[in-house]
């Protein structure tokens, strides 16, 4: 291909012009000859399987050639890094300028316990923080709620009050390090606590950088932490977008997430389509609020899964960038190139880890992390080998971080940008995934957008079907899971498991109750009334929330206001 180098020089030629007519004739002829040889069982072994498929059950051909991308137009479809449509990367210099942010998700036990883990990760070279909250916090309940019994600090950190937030970030340079917080229904409250904590330390809110996940649409379809019904949920999110645009301009107001959609069992194309469709819904809602697309869209970020199928994942990341650029520019008429950027965080696939032979998980995670890097991720969490069993131990989390450091600094893959760009296979797969995902987005548009698609249970049912199909394949050994349905060993491989002290729950409840007893209850009532007023009317909820948490309102107290005004959402239990 390099022989006809002129045509790769960025003049907007289609790929067919990359090769002169004679060469194309030669290629077709060569292809035919090759196929013939393959059919000849004397000179060529028959294929091992009837179908060769990706982990998402997509058929893959035995070979790809220039013919598969003959309609590709270099400047229109790929271009250069930092140039529309950003297929090859959002920044011009990508990892040669700055490596991706190594951002390990951490949260366990109390705020003080998690703070200790944060300090360890920063000391070991991590460059961004990422907070995992426990189930009650994720659902907007305090540790002393009857609904929280047995769950305090189990799969993340318990945050009830501003005091907890202060303990969580004690001694950490929050003015220079960015913080990601995986929180959805109560995102506005947790963000309010973070802002209040920073202001108490004398840091201007306008300087804060970080991310709140704040993506409720994928909660209804995949991750399933709920509070209020879809419509008011979208309204609160739009309040945060509006507030962030005005007050906290360096903050990513929504991390539009495909990760959980994939973990719930979707295919790669479904992950791509549903995530971008969620992004379309948030953009639409903010525009309807009266915001200018170029004012808020640059602060939307994305979060994808990196699953087992190496090339499918790289193609997905590249297709996502190109699709979002087109959606923003063509559909929403955004003019600021930053609005066209799809910046994303990646986490390796938790659902791909096995409890059997857990050390194999290090290898799985390394391959998935490599795919994320070759796909141009902006930040990355690598799962620990024991994450299928419990919250990671310090040792397991360190190996996972080292995995990223080896990819970054030993493997050489970060030396050049989009090193797989131009691969016949990868480009063909990227095109195909884009096409299929846009088809699903059209279907969702026809249903009236993502909100009504969710009300019709469309994405939920599609994901459930894909998840069941995948499990069937594993059961029928159509798909190999090493150590589970093939290469099984009998002996138990011991792994150290982190246990959360049961005493924690009692201590956390005591701490919260102490704060409740010490505060000014008149001031508190007044603040909560203001939150309720904002919810009932059309005033932005963020300032009243910040005032309420400064008056030591607990997470649940603010969330109860939401629940009272907007009602509660119950899982329809689709299977």
């Amino acid at each position, binding site marked *: 291909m390099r022989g006809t180098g002129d045509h790769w020089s960025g003049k907007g030629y289609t790929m067919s012009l990359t090769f002169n007519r004679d060469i194309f004739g030669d290629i077709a002829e060569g292809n035919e000859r090759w196929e013939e040889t393959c059919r000849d069982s004397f000179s060529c072994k028959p294929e091992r399987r009837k179908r060769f498929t990706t982990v998402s059950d997509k058929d893959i051909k035995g070979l790809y050639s220039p013919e598969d991308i003959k309609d590709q137009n270099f400047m229109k479809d790929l271009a250069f890094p930092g140039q529309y449509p950003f297929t090859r990367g959002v920044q011009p210099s990508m990892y040669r300028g700055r490596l991706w942010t190594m951002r390990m998700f951490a949260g366990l036990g109390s705020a003080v316990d998690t703070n200790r883990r944060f300090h360890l990760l920063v000391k070991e070279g991590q460059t961004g923080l990422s907070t995992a909250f426990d189930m009650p916090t994720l659902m907007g309940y305090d540790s002393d709620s009857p609904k929280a019994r047995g*769950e305090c600090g189990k799969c993340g950190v318990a945050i009830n009050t501003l005091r907890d937030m202060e303990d969580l970030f004690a001694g950490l340079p929050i003015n220079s390090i960015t913080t990601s917080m995986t929180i959805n229904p109560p995102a506005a409250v947790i963000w309010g606590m973070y802002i209040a904590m920073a202001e108490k330390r004398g840091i201007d809110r306008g300087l804060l950088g970080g991310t709140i996940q704040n993506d409720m649409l994928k909660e209804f379809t995949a991750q399933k932490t709920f509070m209020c019904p879809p419509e008011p949920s979208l309204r609160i999110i739009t309040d945060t977008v509006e507030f962030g645009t005005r007050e906290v301009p360096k903050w990513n107001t929504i991390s539009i997430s495909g990760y959980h959609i994939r973990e719930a069992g979707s295919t790669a194309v479904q992950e791509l389509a549903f995530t971008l469709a969620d992004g379309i819904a948030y953009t639409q809602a903010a525009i309807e609020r009266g915001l200018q697309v170029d004012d808020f869209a640059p602060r939307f970020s994305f979060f994808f899964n990196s699953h087992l199928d190496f090339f499918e994942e790289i193609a997905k990341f590249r297709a996502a960038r190109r699709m979002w650029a087109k959606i923003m520019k063509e559909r929403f008429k955004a003019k600021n190139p930053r609005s066209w950027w799809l910046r994303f965080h990646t986490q390796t696939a938790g659902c791909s880890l096995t409890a059997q032979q857990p050390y194999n998980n290090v290898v799985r995670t390394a391959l998935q992390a490599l795919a994320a890097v070759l796909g141009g991720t902006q930040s990355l969490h690598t799962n620990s080998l024991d994450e299928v069993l419990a919250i990671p131990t310090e040792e397991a989390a360190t190996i996972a971080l080292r995995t990223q450091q080896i990819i970054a600094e030993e493997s050489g893959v970060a030396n050049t940008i989009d090193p797989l760009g131009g691969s016949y296979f990868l480009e063909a797969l990227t095109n195909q995934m884009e096409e299929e995902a846009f088809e699903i987005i059209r279907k969702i548009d026809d249903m009236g957008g993502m909100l009504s698609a969710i009300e019709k249970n469309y994405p939920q049912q599609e994901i459930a079907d894909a998840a069941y199909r995948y499990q069937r394949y594993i059961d029928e050994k159509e798909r190999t899971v090493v150590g589970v349905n093939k290469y099984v060993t009998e002996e138990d491989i011991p792994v150290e498991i982190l246990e959360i002290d049961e005493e924690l729950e009692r201590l956390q409840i005591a701490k919260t109750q102490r704060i409740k007893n010490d505060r000014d209850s008149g001031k508190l009532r007044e603040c909560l009334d203001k939150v309720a007023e904002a919810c009932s009317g059309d005033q932005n909820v963020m300032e009243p929330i910040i005032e309420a948490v400064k008056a030591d309102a607990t997470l649940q107290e603010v969330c109860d206001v939401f629940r009272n005004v907007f009602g509660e959402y119950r*899982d329809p239990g689709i299977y």
Partner: protein
Amino acid sequence: MVAKPGLDGHDRGARIIARAYRDAGFEVVYTGLHQTPEEIVEAAIQEDVDMLGLSSLAGAHMYLFPRVVTLLREKGAEDIVVCGGGIFPDADIPKLKAEGVKAIFTPGSSLEEITRWAEENVHPRGIS
């Protein structure tokens, strides 16, 4: 009945299991997410189920599972067979069994193994 006690939102397994039971010929009720032990027991009695499968992947099983078993006993429905599935430290499994959870299925269990266990070990209530 397949149930999700507590606040844990990981329902991929529970929903796949519900469908697998259905495909194996069982009549299945799935409670949906975020059920308290009280709600689950009430629903199980109301629906007159023969077996109750509890799913947990977020570490609260040592409180939630025994609580369901206790409530069933209090309501005179201890003949509903309770089993559990999800992620559990090895050391917890004998403890859960001692509390009255009849079987525990962990990651890697096949759908066939899970449905076969029900076929072999669960009988319509009132018929011994």
